[in-house]
C-alpha cells in the first residue's frame, strides 16, 4: 500500500482510496443536471415513439438504386404525404426504412408495391409491419405494468435478503437509470420501440446485479463494523466500494464488449435495425447503470444508514477521536468475516472488550442531538 505503487496496481489489488461517499453532493448534482435536461426535453418534445406504440405502418426494403428523396417522392405519389424515410446499414446491406400513418382507405400492400417498384426489387423483398392504435396502447400499458411489478418484486427480494434501506437505495438507482435513458432518448429523438423497452429492462437487471455485489460486501463489512466501531458507516461503505472497484469496472467492461459489438458491427455495419434498437439503449443504460451503482446507490445507502441511532453513535465517537480510528487489520486488504464461523468468534470477542462504555456514549449522543437542533 505504499505510495510508490502504480494506480494500476492499487486498482488491481483493491487498494484505491477514492472518495465516493464524501463527494455525494457532486455526484447527485451531476445526475440531477442530466435528469433535469432530460425531463425538460421530455416535457417540451416528448418521445419519438415507434409504430408499435402509436400505431401505423412501416416498410423496409433493400435500397437498390433508390435514394431517400426518390423513395419519399414515390410514396407521396402513392398517397403518403407525411412519411419519414431513412437509410439503415451500409454497403450491400443498405436498406430504406419508411414509416407513416395510414389514412382511411389506404392499403399498405399497394404502397408496398410502389416501394418495391421504386427500389427495383420484388414485392417479396419488402418487409412490412402494420400496428393498430389500440394494440400500441395495450403494449405500452403492459410494459408499464411489468416494469412496476418488476421494481416492486426486486425491491421486496433485496429487502428480504439484505434490508429495506438497501432496497430503497437500489430503487433510487434504478429510477435514476430509467430517467437518464428516457431523457437521452427524448433529447436526441431516438425512436422508442419494444426493443428499447427490453433493453432498458435488461439494464435494470445489470444495475441490480452490480448494486447487489457492492451491497453484499457492505453488508459483510457492516457486521464487522458493528463490533469494532472503528470508522463511520460512510467510511466503511467507501472502503467497500474501493475493494470491489476493480470488479465493478471489469463487469462493466465485459458487459459493454458484446453490446459494443452489437452496436458497431451488427447495426452500423451490417444494418440490422433491431440490433441497433437494442444496442443503443443498452449502451446508454449501461453507462448510466455503472454510474448509478457506484455514485447513486451506495451514497444513498450511506446517507440513509447514517441516520440510524447506532451509526450516528459510531460517527460521533469516531469524530471525537479525531477521524479515522486505526483498524485492527489493514482495511482494504482484508475482507472481514471471511467465514461465518470466524466472524462470529471475532465479533463476540470484540464485543466483550467494548462493552464498558455504551451508556456513557448514548447520553452524549442525545446531548449532541439537542445542540444540533438549536
Amino acid at each position, binding site marked *: 500500500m505504499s505510495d510508490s505503487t502504480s494506480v494500476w496496481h492499487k486498482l488491481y*489489488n483493491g487498494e484505491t482510496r477514492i472518495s465516493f461517499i464524501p463527494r455525494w453532493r457532486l455526484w447527485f448534482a451531476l445526475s440531477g443536471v442530466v435528469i433535469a435536461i432530460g425531463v425538460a426535453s421530455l416535457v417540451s418534445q416528448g418521445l419519438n415513439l415507434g409504430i*408499435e406504440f402509436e400505431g401505423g405502418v412501416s416498410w423496409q426494403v433493400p435500397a437498390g438504386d433508390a435514394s431517400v428523396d426518390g423513395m419519399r417522392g414515390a410514396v407521396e405519389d402513392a398517397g403518403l404525404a407525411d412519411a419519414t424515410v431513412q437509410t439503415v446499414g451500409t454497403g450491400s446491406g443498405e*436498406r430504406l426504412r419508411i414509416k407513416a400513418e395510414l389514412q382511411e382507405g389506404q392499403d399498405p400492400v399497394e404502397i408496398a408495391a410502389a416501394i418495391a417498384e421504386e427500389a427495383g426489387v420484388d414485392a*417479396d*423483398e*419488402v*418487409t*412490412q*409491419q*402494420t*400496428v*393498430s392504435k*389500440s*394494440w400500441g396502447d*395495450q*403494449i405500452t400499458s*403492459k*410494459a408499464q*405494468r*411489468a416494469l412496476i*411489478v*418488476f421494481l416492486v*418484486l*426486486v425491491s421486496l*427480494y433485496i429487502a428480504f435478503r439484505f434490508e429495506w434501506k438497501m432496497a430503497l437505495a437500489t430503487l433510487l438507482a434504478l429510477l435514476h437509470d430509467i430517467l437518464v435513458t428516457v431523457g437521452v432518448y427524448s433529447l436526441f429523438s431516438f425512436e422508442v420501440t*419494444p*426493443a428499447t423497452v*427490453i433493453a432498458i*429492462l*435488461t439494464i435494470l*437487471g445489470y444495475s*441490480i*446485479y452490480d448494486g*447487489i*455485489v457492492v451491497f*453484499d460486501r457492505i453488508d459483510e463489512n457492516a457486521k464487522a463494523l458493528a463490533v469494532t466501531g472503528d470508522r463511520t458507516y460512510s467510511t466503511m461503505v467507501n472502503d467497500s466500494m474501493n*475493494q*470491489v472497484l*476493480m*470488479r465493478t469496472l471489469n463487469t462493466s*467492461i*465485459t*458487459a*459493454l*464488449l*458484446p*453490446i459494443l459489438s*452489437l452496436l458497431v*458491427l*451488427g447495426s452500423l455495419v*451490417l*444494418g*440490422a435495425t*433491431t*440490433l441497433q434498437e437494442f444496442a443503443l439503449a443498452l449502451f446508454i443504460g449501461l453507462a448510466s447503470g455503472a454510474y448509478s451503482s457506484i455514485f447513486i446507490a451506495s451514497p444513498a445507502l450511506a446517507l440513509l444508514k447514517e441516520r440510524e441511532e447506532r451509526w450516528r453513535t459510531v460517527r460521533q465517537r469516531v469524530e471525537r477521536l479525531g477521524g479515522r480510528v486505526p483498524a485492527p487489520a489493514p482495511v482494504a*486488504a*482484508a*475482507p472481514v468475516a*471471511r*467465514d461465518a464461523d470466524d466472524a462470529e468468534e471475532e465479533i463476540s470477542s470484540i464485543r466483550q472488550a467494548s462493552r464498558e462504555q455504551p451508556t456513557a456514549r448514548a447520553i452524549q449522543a442525545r446531548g449532541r442531538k439537542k445542540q444540533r437542533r438549536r
Partner: protein
Amino acid sequence: MRRRRSTALIFIVLVAITGVVLSIVTDSSPELGLDLQGGASVVLQPPDGTESESIDQAIEIIRSRVDALGVAEPDIVRQGDTVLVELPGVKDQQRALDIVGQTAELRFRPVLNVLPPEGEEPEPTTTTTTTSTTTTTVAGETATTAAETTTTTTSTTTTTVPPDEIETTAPEEDTDPAVEVVLPDKDGSSRYVLGPTTVLGNAISTASAAFQGEWTVHLEMTADGIGGFNTLAGECFNRAGTCPTGLLAITLDGQVVSAPAIREATFERDQISISGGFGEGEAKDLSLVLRYGALPIQLERQDAQTVSASLGKDSLNAGLLAGAVGTALVLLYMLVYYRLLGAVVIAGLAVWGSLMWSIVSWLGATQGLALSLAGVTGIIVSIGVTGDSYIVFFERLKDEIRGGATIRTSVDRGFRHAFRTILIADTSAFIGAATLYLLTVGPVRGFAFFLGLSTILDVTVAWFFTRPLVGILARRRKFTSGSFIGVRGGAV
C-alpha cells in the same frame, strides 16, 4: 472432497457433450423465429368480453386454414386474450395474413349431392356412411330408433353418382352463401355439393351437448332464426328439389362439420337435437362449433408483420457475427486479465454454450420455441452476465489470497462467498425475467425467456463446472506457483 469435485465436473461436461451429440444425431438445431428466416406474423384480438371457448374455437379455425396454406412450422398460440399467428417462411405473405384474419361464418346448407373425395373413384354400391350416422330429431324421440331410422333413410336416398356425373361447376371456396359450393367434410372422406342458403350462424341461440342414453347435441334457435331454419328443414324433409338428399349440412369456414338427416317437417325453436353415434368429444365439438357460429368472433388485426427472407437472413448473420465478436472480445479480456483463470472462463462458456444450444434445440423441436432476434440479443447480453459471475468469483478469490489464506483454502472460501453473491444477483435477474415473461407480449417475452434461461445456466455452470475445476487446478503446484491469477505476494 476431491472425488466429489471431479464427479460434478465430469457430470456437467458429460451432460453438455450428450446434449450437443443428441442435437447433432437428431439433426435438430434451434428453430429460428420469423424475424430471422422471413415470414409473416399477426396478432389477432377478439372484442372485449369474448368467451374464452370461442377464442379457442377461432384458433382451431385458424389452425386448419394455416394447414391448408402448407406452412411448415406454423406457430399459433394464445397469449391471454390475443392470438399470435406466426408463419415462418410462408410465400405470398399478405395473402396468407388476409386468409388467417377472415371471420369464419357458420351456415346451414341443404346437401344436393355427396361425392367421394377428390381424385377417388366412387365405389358403385356403397352409400356414404358419414352422413347416415347423424340425424336431427325432435327431442324426446328415443335415440336408438332415430339412429336406426336414419340409417335406412339415408342409405335409400343417397344415391351414388356415376363418375361422369361428378363434374360440377360449383366453386370450392365458400365465399357467398347465396351460391352453390362443393365442400369437404372435416376428415376429407367425402365432398358435399351444397345448395344456397339464407340460414346462417346468427340464427342459433345456443347449443349444448348432453348424455341421454347416447351423446346428443341440443340446438336452440333464435325467435328470428327458427322461421328460415324450418323452411329449409321442411324442404329437406320433403326431399324437395332444393334438398334431394334430405340432409342439412352445417358448414363452418369451408368445411362440412356435420350433415344430419332431417327427421321432422318443422321444429320447435328450443326442441332440436342432433344425435346418432356421437362420442362425447364429437358431441361437445359440434356444440362448440354451433355456439361459436352463433357469435362468430371478429378478430381484429393488431400487429401484422411481414419479414422478407433476405432481411431475416441478414439479421441472423448480423446477430451471429456480432455475438461471435462480442464473445471473442470478452474472452480475450478475461485471458489478458486473469491469465490461466481466463482459460477456465473459456471452458466454462463452452459448457454454457453447449447446454444453451442443446436446450434451445430441444425446446425448438418439442415445444416449437423459436429463437427470435430478441432472443439472440438476450443470449448475447447474458454472455456479459455470465462473465460477471466469473469476475465476482475471481475477485473474491484474490481478496482471500491477499487476506493471507492459501490458494487451496481461498478457492473454497472464495467460492462460497462468491456463489452467495451470484445466487442473489441471478435470483433478482430471474425475478425480472419471469415478471417480463408473464406480464408482457410479443418480442419482450422471447427476450425474457432466454434471459431467464441463461441465469439458470449461469448458476448451474458456476456450481458444477467452475467450482470443481478451479478447485482441482488449485491443488496443482504447477498452477499455484507464479502468476496463477496474477496475485502477487499472496502466501501460497
